[in-house]
């Protein structure tokens, strides 16, 4: 049986089809998320490159070092879990600079920063302290003109 075009359906009908396409993923993907969470925990435990991301008032230079390090790993990490975790920490360094130091350490446009923070905030494998950091950074980038 053929199917007709979706063009002409109501917005609600299109939304229903998209929602079906976005239903929760299967067990394999849950295991993948657990792998990312484990990699993230390990990286955060690094005293020089992980700990400053959750410290109350970290030195800006340490955050810039961390950002550069995690960016490199996000692009060239050994496996998908490592790259995903490193991407989260790259954004965490940017977020911590905004929230903890009031400084911008990236050329990413504000819109992309906000989207990255929001996306990571929603990930089940992101720990609560980072989720809170992303939430505050998203608010900061939205209201402060100098971060835009």
């Amino acid at each position, binding site marked *: *049986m*053929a*199917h*007709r*075009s*979706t*063009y*002409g*359906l*109501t*917005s*609600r*009908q*299109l*939304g*229903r*089809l*998209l*929602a*079906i*396409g*976005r*239903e929760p*993923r*299967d067990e394999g993907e849950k295991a993948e998320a657990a792998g990312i969470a484990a990699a993230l925990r390990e990286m955060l435990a690094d005293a020089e490159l992980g700990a400053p991301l959750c410290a109350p008032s970290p030195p800006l230079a340490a955050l810039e070092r961390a950002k550069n390090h995690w960016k490199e790993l*996000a692009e060239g990490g050994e496996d998908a879990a490592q790259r995903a975790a490193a*991407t989260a920490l790259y954004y965490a360094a940017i977020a911590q600079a905004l929230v903890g130091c009031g400084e911008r350490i990236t050329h990413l446009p504000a*819109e*992309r920063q906000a*989207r*990255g923070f*929001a*996306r990571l905030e*929603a990930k089940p494998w992101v720990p609560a302290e980072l989720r809170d950091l992303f939430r505050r950074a998203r608010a900061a980038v939205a209201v402060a003109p100098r971060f835009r």
Partner: protein
Amino acid sequence: MPGRGGETSMGGAGRGFEQTHWSLIVRAQGADGARKQGALAALVGEYWKPVYCYLRRKGYDNEAAKDLTQGFVADVLVGGELVRAADPGKGRFRAFLLTALDRYVASARRAERAKKRAPAGALVSLEGLDGFELADSVHDASPDAAFDYAWASALLDDVLAELRAECLASGKAAHWEVFHGRVLLPVFEEAAPVPLPALCRRLGIEAEAKASNMLVTAKRRFQALLRRRVGQSIGPDEDPDDVIGDLIRSLSLARAGPGAEPRI
């Protein structure tokens, strides 16, 4: 028969190089007119309807929106301006395209050129443009929401056609039929799903449990194809699920306007 994107069978592995919208544009760089148009054909096919809907909701009438759509595709998309400005680091292709479209429309001189070119219709053929109209569902929507509606529709049409073709090519026509009866029909007709026993009888499936498994398989494949398709339009650090979520939110806004939903 391999499907698009290097899939070897329904749900099978064997994915090759994944072409993104950005990589299509990069490939088009330096190509001549005809080769460039060939490289960008997929983009043209996917985006001209959203562009038209966006322009209609910007206030242009049917003819002006069609002329501008034709002009934008010919001058900017295929003509090379978009290719020259392309930067995958800019993230979502949608935002990049709409920025280019706004710039194009803002130029009265270019709009005039588009109008002059349209009757000749020579540069880029947009199949279906002549009879195309704004969908009832987005008559009162914002330009962005109208764009998203048409883009979501184009994505879903493409994904459903691909799923059906895969099912037929891999001897799994019954998977498609089960998916159609249980998932598509209820959405398209706003009706109850076809009962599993009826589907089993019609398709000669011996057990309902087997039909359920077929449904799960087809649904997973639909999800994978949709995520892959959406993934082609975004940067490497973005998640297709986020884009799908944004589309769902945008569609819910599109129907918030008065009279946005057609009466049944």
